[in-house]
């Protein structure tokens, strides 16, 4: 089970790294990171919509997302 955990973790990490490479290539990183955050905000709200949750405000989302990126425990779907 642990081995499968590690394999999944590695697969997701590779995906995120590869996605970050594409994000950088397109130029969505600083200084235009707002565009990237906006994309994230929209997709999270789309997914929240699929489970009947109302949209989350942009500022709230941004703060949660940044907290999550820095390793904090955050929930987007409650």
């Amino acid at each position, binding site marked *: 089970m642990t081995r499968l*955990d590690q394999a999944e973790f590695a697969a997701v990490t590779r*995906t995120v790294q*590869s*996605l970050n490479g594409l994000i950088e290539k*397109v130029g969505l990183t600083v200084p235009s990171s707002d565009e990237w955050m906006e994309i994230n905000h929209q*997709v999270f709200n789309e*997914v929240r919509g699929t489970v009947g949750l109302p949209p989350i405000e942009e500022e709230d989302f941004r703060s949660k997302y940044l907290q999550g990126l820095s390793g904090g425990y955050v929930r*987007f779907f409650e």
Partner: protein
Amino acid sequence: MIVGLMAFYIVPRLLGIIIGIIILLGLMELVSWASYNLGIWPVGALFRVLEWVVFISAGVWMWNYVMNVLKAHKAFQEMKMRPVRGGVASEALSESQLASKRDEAISLIRHLQKMLAYQQLSMERYNGAAALASGSPPGSGMAVERPLFSVQSRTLVSQYMIPALEYKIELICSMKDEHEQVGQLVTEEIRRPYDEMSVAINMMLERANLQYQGFTSFEQNSDLAWI
């Protein structure tokens, strides 16, 4: 320009090789000389021949190296001097192509971020159920880290864990479907992150199925404990 290229690029790079070859030839000459003096003349002769082989090969290699560097340098100079053909119309076309490629990449980024949002949803639901079943606080916010917990009660497993895993499997299957539909539109140029996500989704599904099998076995078999 060529003198600068020779002085700052070619010669410093070749210097190490030339010194190495001189040392090698010196050693070979020493062996050859010693062999002749000891009367083992076939070995001495063989080393003399080898010295010539090394000397000629090194000369040919260095000549080719210098020629290739000069050729590459000339090609680079020509490329810099080449006028831009086409004018305004082709520049506009190139910009529109660039914009179209950017749009395509942004669509893919949006899709992949959505897949990660689904993955976050499945993890939150699963961790929430695990916390309820084990009486532990919710796990960490790491993307796919499985929190360590111990579930003692079969009732709690059937009440929380099994429905959470059924939901997780259903969600990942739906992600997989959506991902496969998008795949038809992704071009080769930006396909790598898409393919990495395909692998990740398969791993998620495999793990969720294994977790499901584990918990259902635990629920049905009183001899097992689940940690």
